[in-house]
């Protein structure tokens, strides 16, 4: 127990003294997971719209695949992305392995199915007559999709939060494709693992608290957006 208090004290100390290394790690976590979530929103919502609003053979299979993808283990994603990015691998010419871009890529692969799966459910949950109504009022297809997304914004923002939560907290993929390089690809989760294995439990706890505060701040912001625009 005393370790937890010690960690809390250490977290405050690191934050108040603006420890440059901790600041860099925290900002990198936010940046990497933020960009990855953004990419996943674009991709995942695209997939959700395509799957939810179209009838095609294999639709149920597609939904089942997206739902399975929500549970993709980060280490599995990390392993695949690593092998693809190896310099002798198919994407090796990009030179991305052990860079923040590689982490963004892996995290986007993790978050996209989460946002797609929850997005499909959100859109399918809308009243079936709504689409016809919108189209009957003379809306174009793009306007119709936009209105449907707006109508489902509550569960869709929940999907975005789930996606962000999935990637800011994962460590398996980040450590494999990023390498936990000091000053370059060290993020909060990989630093926590390293400090734990070094026996620096106080620092590990401190980083954990910072991670929790960061996750809370982002989610508080998203929740604010979600609740403010709640349909009355």
């Amino acid at each position: 127990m005393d370790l937890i208090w010690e960690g809390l004290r250490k977290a405050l100390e690191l934050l108040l003294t603006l420890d440059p290394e901790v600041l860099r790690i925290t900002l990198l976590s936010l940046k990497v997971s933020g960009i990855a979530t953004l990419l996943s929103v674009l991709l995942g919502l695209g997939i959700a719209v395509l799957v939810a609003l179209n009838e095609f053979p294999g639709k149920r299979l597609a939904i089942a695949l997206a739902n399975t993808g929500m549970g993709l283990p980060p280490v599995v994603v990390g392993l695949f992305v690593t092998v693809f990015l190896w310099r002798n691998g198919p994407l090796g010419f990009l030179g991305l392995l052990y860079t923040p871009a590689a982490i963004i890529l892996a995290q986007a692969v993790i978050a996209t199915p989460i946002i797609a799966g929850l997005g499909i459910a959100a859109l399918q949950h809308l009243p079936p007559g709504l689409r016809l109504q919108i189209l009957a009022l003379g809306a174009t297809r793009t306007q119709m999709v936009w209105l449907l997304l707006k109508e489902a914004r509550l569960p869709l923002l929940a999907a975005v939060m789930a996606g962000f939560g999935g990637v800011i907290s994962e460590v398996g993929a980040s450590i494999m494709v990023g390498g936990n390089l000091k000053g370059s690809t060290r993020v909060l989760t990989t630093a926590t693992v390293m400090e734990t294995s070094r026996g620096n439990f106080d620092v590990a706890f401190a980083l954990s608290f910072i991670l929790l505060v960061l996750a809370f701040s982002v989610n508080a912001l998203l929740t604010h957006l979600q609740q403010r625009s709640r349909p009355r």
Partner: protein
Amino acid sequence: MNLSTWLRGSLAVALFLGSALLSAAAPPSLPDVILATTTSTQDSGLLDELIPRFEQQTGYRVKTIAVGSGQAMAMGKRGEADVLLVHSPEAEQTLVAEGSGINRRIVMHNDFVLVGPPSDPAGIVKHTAVESFQCIAAAKSLFLSRGDNSGTHAQELRLWKAAGVAFERQAWYQQTGQGMGQTLAIVAEKKAYTLSDRGTFLALQKKLGLAVLHEGDPSLRNVYHVIEVNPARFPKVNAAGARAFADFMVSKPVQAWVKEFGISLYGSPLFFPDAEVPK
């Protein structure tokens, strides 16, 4: 702003940049060097101090991938690393013999220690390393193995083999599959025995409540070599960077520094330099 002040300004900037570039080492054409190494070199803090020096001296950027010796050598075998700093002599010789690694040079050593609860339920104190393993097996005391193909794991397997006891699939023999630091934490929690490199143990000692029960046996020597990945086999390897790092590790100043590393923090050195001084 007229033309002449603009010219003078840009000349000053150019001169400043030029002198800044000259004072630093000329930047190498391939700046990134991937170093695959063991967790012990990172967890002990050795690389945290050495890598920035190397980067400053040479202009290379080192990407340190700290994994077990097994994975480090697997990366070398595929040409996915440029240089290795590892401690699994038999596997290293195979790597060099099959042509993936070149220029294997000795850097330093420390030793393995058998650690366990201070009460020593299996009574291994005063025995040789091999006898200690036999005692643990006979007493069926819990032994935690790294089980991750690391250099430490390889050394442990050699000792079991020498002890000639069955250990696989025994209830008292468990594998953590994790690095040394994490394994030691589990060992402390479960009051078990394990084989550890001295560096990591010393670095964590205060938090563990474990004791060194056996040390000093010649069979417990833990030798680190630096190996360059063969650029003839893997054209994408940064051969110049790998050579520069290997040369740095065996250089006189670094060897002298290794000798002192850890004394102020842990009261004794964590590694002992071994490189043959070039004539």
